[in-house]
């Protein structure tokens, strides 16, 4: 049987995704994994390490450097009765596959009058933090979240890494999953399958009354850290992990903001045109009369992400910025904190 680590004791994010793939492939012979270096190399971020030995090179299918070609082939294979998991190594390279995703995957069901089904899952790594510079550090989640016909997931915890893929595969329509590059080494105990939450739901990761901190993906950990620091100052922040970026679980967002009256959205996307902007707009539209202060965002700076660590950090959201934004929003004294990261 499987040599893939699936025990729920303690998995890394990477292992959790791998376990999810392995489980799905054991359960359904229509599932296969296709992408660059998923097989012999074991995956750019080692997610699929060992899977080729377990399932063979036909079901762990190494693809040439042809993002448009093999993503389109994944769409076609889904139409043809398979359940492909396509790995686009990173979101940066998905730019080469956008025509297939937007013009085909997202439109075909509706445009054919409901005839076609595209039960496809596309996984891709996203985000900055590894000092990979401007062409390798994109966070384009809001581009995808803008497109009707696809669903967009952003697992930020080990549990979600473990279970969201299965839910995405069970969905009859195309689902894009973003895995933040800084999460792969994180570890945690995986809950039982019964405790996993529907992929469409946002989750309140920490309850609080004073302010809502809304985030997703690679920014969740930073936001949780910020919430902890705020706690030391007796500010009770509620932290919401969006999880599903399209469609948005507006109910969870709105009830939190209606309760706290204050909101900061933390998002690694560039500020202008960001998903954070969308959340702020939604909140302003729907929670206007509950708001005690303007909605705020902590986003990436409007600059191609530079290589050196200090500039990469300056360009992307940091814990301290979240804390300060919250302090300002609550009219608390702004104190330099021992963020220590």
């Amino acid at each position, binding site marked *: 049987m499987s040599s893939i680590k699936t025990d729920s004791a303690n998995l890394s994010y990477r292992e959790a995704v791998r376990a999810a793939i392995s489980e799905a492939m054991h359960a359904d012979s229509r599932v*296969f994994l296709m992408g660059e270096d998923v097989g012999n190399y074991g995956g750019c971020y080692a997610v699929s390490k060992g899977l080729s030995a377990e399932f063979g090179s*036909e079901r762990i299918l190494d*693809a*040439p450097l*042809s993002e*448009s*070609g*093999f*993503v*389109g*082939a*994944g*769409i*076609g*294979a*889904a*139409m*043809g*009765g*398979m359940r*492909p998991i396509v790995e686009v190594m990173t979101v940066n390279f998905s730019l080469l596959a956008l*025509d*297939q995703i937007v*013009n*085909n995957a997202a439109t*075909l*069901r*509706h*445009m*054919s*009058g*409901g*005839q*076609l*089904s595209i039960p496809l899952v596309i996984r891709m790594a996203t985000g900055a933090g590894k000092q990979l510079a401007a062409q390798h550090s994109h966070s384009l989640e809001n581009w995808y979240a803008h497109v*009707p*016909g696809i*669903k967009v997931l952003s697992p930020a915890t080990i549990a979600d890494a473990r279970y969201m893929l299965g839910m995405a595969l069970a*969905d*009859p*329509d195309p689902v894009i999953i973003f895995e933040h590059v800084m999460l792969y080494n994180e570890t945690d105990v995986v809950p039982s399958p019964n405790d996993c939450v529907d992929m469409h739901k946002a989750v309140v990761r920490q309850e609080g009354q004073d302010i809502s901190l809304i985030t997703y993906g690679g920014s969740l950990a930073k936001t949780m850290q910020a919430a902890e620091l705020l706690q030391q100052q007796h500010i009770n922040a509620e932290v919401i992990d969006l999880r599903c970026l399209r469609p948005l679980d507006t109910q969870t967002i709105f009830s939190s903001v209606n309760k706290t009256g204050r909101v900061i959205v933390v998002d690694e996307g560039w500020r202008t045109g960001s998903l954070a902007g969308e959340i702020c707009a939604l909140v302003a539209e729907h929670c206007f009369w509950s708001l005690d202060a303007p909605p705020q965002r902590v986003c990436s700076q409007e600059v191609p992400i530079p290589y050196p660590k200090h500039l990469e950090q300056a360009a992307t959201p940091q814990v301290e910025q979240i804390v300060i934004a919250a302090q300002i929003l609550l009219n608390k004294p702004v104190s330099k904190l021992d963020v220590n990261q």
Partner: protein
Amino acid sequence: MTNTKNKPHMDKQHLQHLLKQMLRIRRFEERCAQLYTQEKIRGFLHLYNGEEAVAVGVMQALKPEDAVLATYREHGHALARGLDMNAVMAELYGKVTGSSRGRGGSMHIFDTAKGFYGGNAIVAGALPLAVGLALADKMQHKANVTVCFFGEGAVAEGEFHESLNLAKLWQLPVLFVCENNGYAMGTALQISESEQHIYKKAQSYGLDAKAVDGMNVVDVEAAAKHYCDVIRSGSGPCFLECNTYRFRGHSMFDTQLYRASEEVKEWQLKGPIVKLQNWLQDNHELRESELAQLEAEVVQEVDAAVVFAEEAEFEAEADLFFGVHTAVTV
């Protein structure tokens, strides 16, 4: 039209069938052009006029389980593949009884029951889909063929290159059919490709590839049958370049500044319908009365399709969201 008698299927009946299929497309589209000027049909309308032999010839080689993908110029493929003309016409009208509930229009005709996967308005956009359908067949050990039609303009796209390599690398059951009509909108092949023999480009990926006279429906059929046999035998993808010509503009907006009307006239003399019809008549395989009968049947079918489309309803506005996702139902 030499030697056709030697081939099993090339009897009078079959040749008349081919003629009728081409006539169905021709007359259907002539009516479409009228309906376009009457604003019954809107959006883009790309006619297949002159190229009918390609779709009709290739379709003869297919089985019901096979898959077909085409471009925005796909009325001919849809009809030759056996889609109901009523549903196709209703689609062009944007009516809910259309093949895509009227949502796709001329460029997006679908019928999964017939293995007809569209109708794609992005040049070369269907090629990767064809690769994927064939991959699914191979993985499921189905001996089907996926046929993908595209124009010679698509050859310049990266998706062409990626798709041919994937198909050959993985030995997938795809028949690529390049409809080389010499122009991509107003761009002649000489100003879009450094190598203008498209089949040679395909050969450079290791595909079994050749060019045929796309004005000769019999040649197209023979070549397609041969390649489909090769593909079904498990020898991987093949590539058929069909040299043809479109008699009308690229779309209804085209003022055709880029070519001389003499060129068009020359090609028209070599048209696939006139060619087959003349041959049949010269060989006493088509009596005047038979031809009249054929034409009458076709006109009747087209007339009925127009009536069907006219009488059909538009989709209710309330159903706008149906099918964005599977869960969104009527």
